[in-house]
């Protein structure tokens, strides 16, 4: 491309606004032409035609999984240690109520089966009673900290 307008060399003050605008305009036009020329074949072959992004998981999904895991762990521990059932089963029922509510909110009610007594998330609960309680206590505390952590906001849908 040949610039046909005069180009000022070594000039520190603007003396010819018309020529300056003209040079800028030419540069802009050249850039647009270059972009257009490059983009046209790309759009033609579909490289810029992106598919719709997959839907993001609901921000409450981890909380739902955690509630179900906590409930399952409590039920498994109550099965392994029947003397703890009276203490543990009400907690399991609370977590199950949380999971049901979260599932209702997120529309995941039928996505996952409710936890069962044999669906311990981390395998067989410890056989030792105190170790079982300690492990459950750790899980409960971790769950509480996760629950009060601000959930990431879902980006607005386009």
């Amino acid at each position, binding site marked *: 491309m040949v610039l046909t307008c005069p180009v000022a060399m070594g000039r520190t003050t603007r003396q010819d606004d018309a020529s300056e605008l003209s040079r800028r305009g030419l540069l802009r036009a050249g850039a647009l032409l270059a972009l257009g020329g490059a983009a046209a074949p790309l759009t033609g072959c579909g490289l810029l035609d992106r598919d719709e992004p997959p839907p993001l998981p609901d921000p409450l999904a981890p909380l739902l999984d955690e509630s179900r895991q906590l409930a399952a762990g409590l039920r498994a521990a109550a099965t392994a240690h029947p003397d703890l059932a009276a*203490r543990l089963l*009400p*907690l399991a*029922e*609370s977590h199950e*109520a*949380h999971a049901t*509510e979260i599932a209702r909110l997120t529309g995941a009610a039928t996505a996952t089966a409710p936890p069962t007594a044999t669906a311990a998330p981390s395998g067989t609960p410890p056989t030792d009673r105190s170790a079982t309680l300690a492990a459950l206590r750790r899980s409960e505390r971790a769950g*509480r900290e996760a*629950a*009060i952590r*601000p959930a990431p906001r879902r980006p607005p849908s386009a």
Partner: protein
Amino acid sequence: MSESAEALAAALTAEYAAIWAYGPVGVRLSGAERKAAAEAEAAHRARRDALVVQLSTGGGSVPPDRAGYALPFPVTDRASALRLAVQVEERTAAFWRAALPVSTGADRDRALAALVEYAVRATRWRRSAGIAPLTVPFPGRPS
């Protein structure tokens, strides 16, 4: 006044009542339970002070405290004191829960922290009182 300020003002009235209620609770308890009651009262006082500062500096109206509050039942012994402590925490938690949907940012975080703290404390009082079940699935939610 905004919805958030109204909810915080309501939470402040609940904190006033909680502080007052821990007076008759504390005198019926002893040992570790009395210490726990004193710590609970201090926590409610801290939240009251923070709310007063926040509402007054934010241009909102600060509801006044009352000279006294009607107890839901006579507090005459340890058992009734523990029952009242459970109710105090549950009812105060309900006010903070009501503040959650109308608050944002740091206000929402504080409301959630108060709700969780009072729910945990209510569970501890239930355990001391031998009340079953120990927990409720949704603390502070109207039944």
